[in-house]
């Protein structure tokens, strides 16, 4: 099992989710994060002082999946979340040793 963690632009969330469903992704966990990267933040003004907001709002997805799905999911996320503009985000993959479904106690790939 792998955990795929993707950081994307917030307004792409719904689209990505819909694109993943046909691939067999049945669950994911989403959080609001702020990202810092090549894309620089925007200047804000507050009471006459300009300042940089370095961190931009992004959405982070965490999706636990069976190994064989990883490639297609990563590709789909990459394609769907892409706008071609800077700040589109990243996809990371790492290894999961265990997964348990709390409701049933099932574990391993069955828990996903």
């Amino acid at each position, binding site marked *: 099992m792998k955990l795929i963690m993707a950081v994307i632009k917030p307004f792409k969330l719904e689209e990505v989710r819909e694109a993943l469903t046909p691939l067999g992704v049945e669950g994911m966990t989403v959080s609001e994060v702020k990202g810092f990267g090549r894309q620089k933040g925007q200047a804000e003004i507050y009471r006459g002082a300009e300042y940089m907001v370095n961190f931009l*709002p992004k959405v982070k997805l965490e999706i636990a999946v069976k190994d064989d799905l990883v490639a297609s999911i990563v590709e789909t996320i990459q394609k769907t979340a892409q706008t071609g503009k800077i700040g589109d985000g990243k996809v990371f993959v790492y290894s999961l040793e265990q997964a348990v479904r709390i409701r049933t106690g099932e574990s391993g790939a069955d828990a996903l």
Partner: protein
Amino acid sequence: MLIENLKHTLSKGVARLAGVVGAAMLLLVMSGAAHAEVPGESQFVFNTFSFLVHGFLVMWMAAGFSMLEAGLVRTKNTAMQCLKNVALFSIASIMYYLIGYNLMYSGVDGGFMGSFSLWGQDDSAAAAGKFVGDGAVGYSAASDFFFQLVFVATAASIVSGTVAERVKLWAFLAFTVVLTGIIYPIQGSWQWGGGWLSEMGFADFAGSTLVHSVGGWAALTGAIIIGARKGKYGADGTVKPMPGANLPLATLGTFILWLGWFGFNGGSQLAMGSAADAIAISNIYINTNIAAAGGVLAAIVLTQLIYKKVDLTMALNGALAGLVSITAGPDTPSLGLSAIIGAVGGVLVVVFVPLLDKLKIDDVVGAIPVHLVAGIWGTMAVPLSNADASFYTQAVGVVSIGIFVIVTSAILWFVLKMVMGGVRVSPEEEEQGLDMAECGLEAYPEFRGSQTI
């Protein structure tokens, strides 16, 4: 004295004939008795005080619109919505002085507009000791100016809510300049300025048509020309709700408007210097109140029946629709009829909000159902209790003002489009939110909100 006062009121506003009828009838009953006990100067003070107190209540409605709209837009556009409301009230204050007031009231004489000139106070009659009656005005010039001025801002606030979350700040402000300086005053002159509509016998006591539907027409025109918010309507006809970010604020705004409406309708009696006027204003207060109550309850019951849940935003809009509905004639109906008039307004809101969405007309805060639809209903409902009003004349007023406002504001939006290179922010700016794009700050910088989750 009382009779003179009434005459005066009549002469100032044949326009508001309908509104005065209640008081007039009462007066006929009274005229046998020796009742003319309020001295002229006291009447002058009473009338002026009424304009001031009721005027500050209407001014307070500016805060109500701000809070209502700030609560019904998404976080990322909230500061902008506040800014627009503060700015439009300021623009109205200045434009009405520069052009509006005299265009609306000075030398209309049954015609189509007044004159282009700066307003200046003329209290010479009072200075000459003429407080009421022949040759007198009956109140201080500035108190009247104040009261009329705060009405103008209302019309502009309505537009601001509908076209929220996408219109460019400066385009909107430019629109406001013309709306408050020219469009509103011209149509206002037709009725309250003593123009052709008032001569026909149109009845619109406090402005269901002259204020609310004017704002509503301008909002509708704007919504159509500017288009819906990005992502609001799917190609397949789905409607994506974009819930307002702060409903307690919207609730506060509604209560502010409800309170302000006592000034809006009560003050429109234009006098308070006699028992007859005081009685009339009191009746207006309770009719106004119960119409709002009717609107709320109708909206609550209806959303419960349709959706099995009660939609707070509809209840709030219901209150406002009730208030708009009674505004054309808050003086003549009984309490019971007022409640019904308001309740119909509440029903209209529940029906028209989703209907507009079907038509892909994107009205962020529901201003079109509330101010336009209920405004028309309220105007047409006047003859139900006011024998001097006729359905025909009411319809003429509604239609003529509707056409005038649609045409002028459409032209205006198109001119602004050309001059300003579009009246709408770019899709990226819309995505980002107007607060960052045009204000460079955030309304709630510490509360992270995402529009997407």
